[in-house]
Each structure stands twice: as C-alpha cells, then as structure tokens.
C-alpha cells in the first residue's frame, strides 16, 4: 500500500471516528432533548404547569372531572391515598384537594411524589399553585401527614376533554436525599 493511500485511509478513519464520538454523545443528548420535547409539546403527561397566581376567570358553563390515583413504589412501607376519589370543577375554578400519607416503617423515610396526567395532552391545562409534589416529604416512624394540592384547570381546555386523571407515584428517595446533604 502506498504511503499516500495509507494517509488517505487514516484521514478518512479519523473522520469516521469523530462521527462515532458524536453519535455516542447524541445518545446522551437524547435525554435532555426528550425532556425539552415533552415540555414543548406537552406529551407524556409529565409537564404539569406550576402557576404562581391563582386563576381569575371561571367558566361556569361546563365542568371537568379530575380523578385521582395514587401508587407507592414497590417495597416502600408507606400508605398514600387521596381523601376524595375525584372532584368536578369548572375550568378556572381554584380547588384544594388533600392527600394523606403515613409512614408504616420504624425508620425515617423521605418520599417524593411524581405526577402524571392522562390523557397526556391535558397536562398542559392543569395548573398547580401549590403541591406537595414540589417538595420532598420526610416522615418519622408512624407519622401521618395531610398534604395539600391547590390547582385550577385552564379555561381554554379543549371541549373534548371532560375527564382527566391525575396520578401520583410515590418513591422512596431517602438514600438520594442523604447523598445530597
């Protein structure tokens, strides 16, 4: 193989090698891209809007039912329930809902609730002015707590959405929280 060909080969090899490094990086870049994509489009039901101000306008002409679901991560010794199964609200109406949690373990555990809305596209219309899911919740052994959620549904919610489900999954983040301190 002549010298010039060997050099040409090496040059092309380096170019292709950089494509590979780039694509490896792209694999990881997909993680934030995915989050941004979900936020922009409101897909995936995770992007519940955090609202600083309560709603001003109320659309009295229609009601939307918001159902609540809770689940606790496998192996986490907490009981976690909404106090009501659902509420019927007018779009724009400010509403308070309470959830109760109790730590059944003999150790202190820190919980974190992760919300998800179904249908996913409705998530953008659910505004929370206050939610226990904004913060971590530590509970001592046997301690019980009532946690509040204040929300309203945007008046511009599409006509075809009459029922939506808000689900909270509760995770044990004691270890991660300890690591952060």
């Amino acid at each position: 193989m002549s010298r010039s060909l060997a050099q040409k080969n090496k040059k092309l090899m380096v170019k292709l090698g950089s494509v590979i490094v780039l694509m490896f990086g792209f694999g990881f870049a997909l993680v934030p891209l995915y989050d941004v994509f979900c936020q922009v489009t409101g897909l995936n039901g995770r992007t519940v809007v955090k609202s600083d101000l309560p709603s001003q306008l109320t659309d009295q002409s229609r009601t939307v039912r918001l159902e609540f679901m809770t689940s606790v991560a496998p192996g986490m010794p907490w009981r976690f329930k909404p106090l009501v199964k659902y509420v019927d609200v007018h779009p724009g109406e400010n509403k308070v809902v309470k959830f109760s949690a109790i730590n059944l373990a003999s150790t202190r555990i820190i919980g974190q609730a992760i919300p998800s809305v179904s249908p996913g596209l409705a998530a953008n219309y659910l505004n929370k002015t206050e939610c226990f899911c904004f913060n971590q919740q530590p509970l001592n052994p046997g301690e019980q707590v009532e946690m509040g959620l204040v929300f309203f549904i945007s008046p511009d919610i599409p006509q075809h959405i009459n029922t939506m489900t808000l689900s909270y999954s509760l995770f044990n983040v004691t270890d991660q929280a300890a690591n952060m301190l």
Partner: protein
Amino acid sequence: MADTIVQGGNENSTEQNNTDQKSTAHHHQPPKGIMRWILTTNHKDIGTLYLCFSFLMFLVGGGMAMVIRAELYQPGLQIIEPGFFNQMTTVHGLIMVFGAVMPAFTGLANWLIPMMIGAPDMALPRMNNWSFWILPMAFAILLSSLFMEGGGPNFGWTFYAPLSTTYSPDSTALFVFAIHIMGISSILGAINVIVTIINMRAPGMTYMKMPLFVWTWLITAFLLIAVMPVLAATVTMVLTDKYFGTSFFEAAGGGDPVLFQHIFWFFGHPEVYIMILPSFGIISAIIPTFSRKKLFGYSSMVYATASIAVLSFTVWAHHMFTTGMPLTAELFFMYCTMLISVPTGVKVFNWVATMWRGSMTFETPMLFAIAFIVLFTIGGFSGLMLAITPADFQYHDTYFVVAHFHYVLVTGAIFSIMAASYYWVPKWTGHMYDERLGKLHFWCSLISVNVLFFPMHFLGLAGMPRRVPDYALQFADFNQLVSIGGFAFGLSQLIFLVVMIKCVRGGTKAPAKPWEGAEGLEWDLPSPAPYHSHTTPPVIK
C-alpha cells in the same frame, strides 16, 4: 502470476504453499498453525474467521432456541424454570443478532468486498484483526454470565428499563460490557468497510459500477456507525442506573422508562436494516447469475437501498404504539413505516423482473435466493399488518410479532447468508460443494422453517403472548407443530455443516468462474482465490 496463486483460503494447502512461496517471497508470510489465525491481517483469513465464528454462534443460539421449543412443546412447566426460560429467550436473541447474523455479514464483506472492487486487501488490516478477535471475548463474557449466581440477562434482548435496571440480575454489568465490545467490533468493521470502498476501488470502478453487495454494505456501514454508538450510550445509561445511582430511566429521580424505549429503538430500527440490507446485495448478485440476465434496474436498487436507510431513522416508535403516544405521533410513525414498503417493493419487483424470461437454473444458491424473495416478502407483509396502529394494539407482544421478525431474519437474513455461502464457496475453497446435499439442505430447511414459523402467525392472532414459558391449553396443538418444525430446522442446519466441511476438504475442482452467468471481478481471480487479491489493479470494462 505464479507467485500470487499460491495460498488457498483453507488450512490444508497452507503448508505446501508456504514452501512454494519462500522462493519468490515478496509478501510477508502468514505464520503456521494457530498463530496464523490469531495474527492474521489478511482479509480472507479474517473473513473465514468471521464466518466460522458466526456459524458457531448460530449453533449456540440455535441450541437455546431448541431449549425454548422443547419447553413450549407442551403447556405447563416441564423442563426448565421460568427464570431460565427468560435467560434463554434473551441470550438467544442477543446471540443471533450480534453473534450470528452481523458477524456473518462482516465475514462476507471481508471476503468479497476487496475482490469485488479490485483491491488487494481491506484498507485497515491491523484493525480488521482486532475487530474480529474482540468478538469471541464479548461472547465469552455474555455466555459466562449464564453461569453466575442469579443467572444471566433475563430481560429480553431489548433490555427494557426497569427490567434491565431495577429488576435485573447481578450479572447485568457483564451483559453491558459484552454489548460494548460487540458494538466496538462492529463499529471497527464498519469503518474498515467504508474506508476500503471509498479509497481502495480499482481505477475505473466508479460508484455506479460497484456490485450491489458492495453498495448495500457501504450503506449498512454508515448505518452502523450512526447507531451502534447510540446503543453504547443506552447500555451505559443502564449500567449507571443500576450500579451508580443515576436516574435516566427511573421516575423517582426525574427519569422516564419510556425514554429508554425511544433511545433503544432509535438504535433498534436501523439495526433491523443493518441485518437485511447486505442480504439485498447478495440476492441481487445471485438472481441475475442463475437467470443469465443483467440485474433489472441497477440504479433504482441503489436508490431504494439508500432511501430504506434514511427512512429507517423515522420509524422507531412503531415498536411503541401501545406506550400511550398521541394520535399525531402514531399516525406519523404508521405512515413512515408503510412508506418503507415502497423502496422494498421496488427491490422485490426488480428481482422478479430479472428472473422474467431468463434462462433460469435452480442450483442451491438460486433456490435459497428465490425462497428469500418469497418468504422475506411474507415477513414484509406481516410487518405491514403490524404497522397499522389500531391492529398493532391487538398484535403487540404476541407470537404474531415473533412470526414476523423470524420471517424477515431467518428466511430473510439467514437464508441469504446460506445462499451466499453456497454461491461463493467454490471461490473460497477451490472446490464445488455437494449439490445433492446442498439441495437436501435447502428443501429440509424450507419445509421445516415454514412448519416452525407459519403457525406462529395464528398463535399470535389467537392471543398467545410472546416470551412465556407456559401457555393456555388452546394453544397446545399449534405449539407442538411449531416445536417439531423447530427441531427439524435445527437438525437441517447440520447438513449445511457437513456440506461446508466436505467442500473445504475436497471435491470437484472449481473453475475460476463456476457459474455460467456470474459477473464481477471476484470471478476473474482463480479458485481458490489467491492469498492476496488483485495485486495489480484489474481493468474495469
């Protein structure tokens, strides 16, 4: 020319040729014995290694399939534990994809591409040696994990999180490293193919004169370097999620398990085409030879291959229709998936048009090639059925899916590799294979493979889920039939082994061009092909 026609591709002729060559030695000589194979940088030796290794893996993965079919012969749990069953389905898939199909294609690329484009060897021979030899290590690691406490990978070859993170066995790190090494191997192989094709073509071998096998491999190699790094990223995330407390796929830490599926299938769908595009090249070489006609629509074949490759990046979410995607996304991925059948249809049309009014003969490679066209098309049709979003909700995770991808991979990719082996083996060994045994292998395979996979369609439509060690009673009869087909297909492959061993050891001497209608530079070389192909660039007409 005498000094270039000295080294056969097989071990038998090595010794006597070595002495021949000493007198006229101007190439470095391969060492004798095992070191020849370990140190070799010769594209033919490495091609042979790849092909032998992939056949070995085909038998190992096939053995696991036999275990699976034995357990499913009857409803209820008879032979193995459900946990071990899961390890069998997982490792069967991993071995067949990364150990059998992909290395077989790389082996064919090594053997054929330099001969087809008029090059003396691959462009990066030392790297070529590495890209092969890390492969046995990867599979040694993967297979050893089966014997670890807690067992080997049991989460399916798609290793969906959280199955592969929260709920996976302790040996998952070994799985991750094995995948990393396999990925590096195929990336190195792909770089080599691209550099060889772009820089090493003989003068006059323009891109649009390249044989389609070279074209399809060039496109495949680009797919490989685009998506194998993404697979590497995915397994790395699985590794850190499981062992180092990151939360890429863990909802509790702000991650998302659905994200895993997106990243995995961003790799996974182009991967499907990595395993089929070289087949298209093989079939496009064999059909014209035995039809004694030029390939119909050469340039449309090139463009069809390229458009399949591009489209393959836009369809990944058709694996995820049931994850709760919005309607727009489901429609987008449904239409894109269906769109792929257009360039694929162009190819099938061209092959059939090539055969039309040709003077056809039906030697073993041609039989496998025709079976490929028919059966791969059946696999394509079931793929179209799966592409229909509302129908997919019914078929998802059933045996219909298993039937679909085995039609495209076994009667598609594997049949094309068989066809290629029969077609080029006279060039590799210098001997003709046993045509009678070859035909026997073909007919046994053809009948058994359909007994094996065709009833799976009905099992799936009737609702039998995939990846289960036990099933409801109404599926018993068909499963028995499927298992019998499976055992027959497995045994039939031993005929292939016999044919190939016989062909390496001896047989009728093969002329330089054993097939009357064959075209291409590889047939200008004597059979067996000399140790160094085209030492002086051939003249392209």
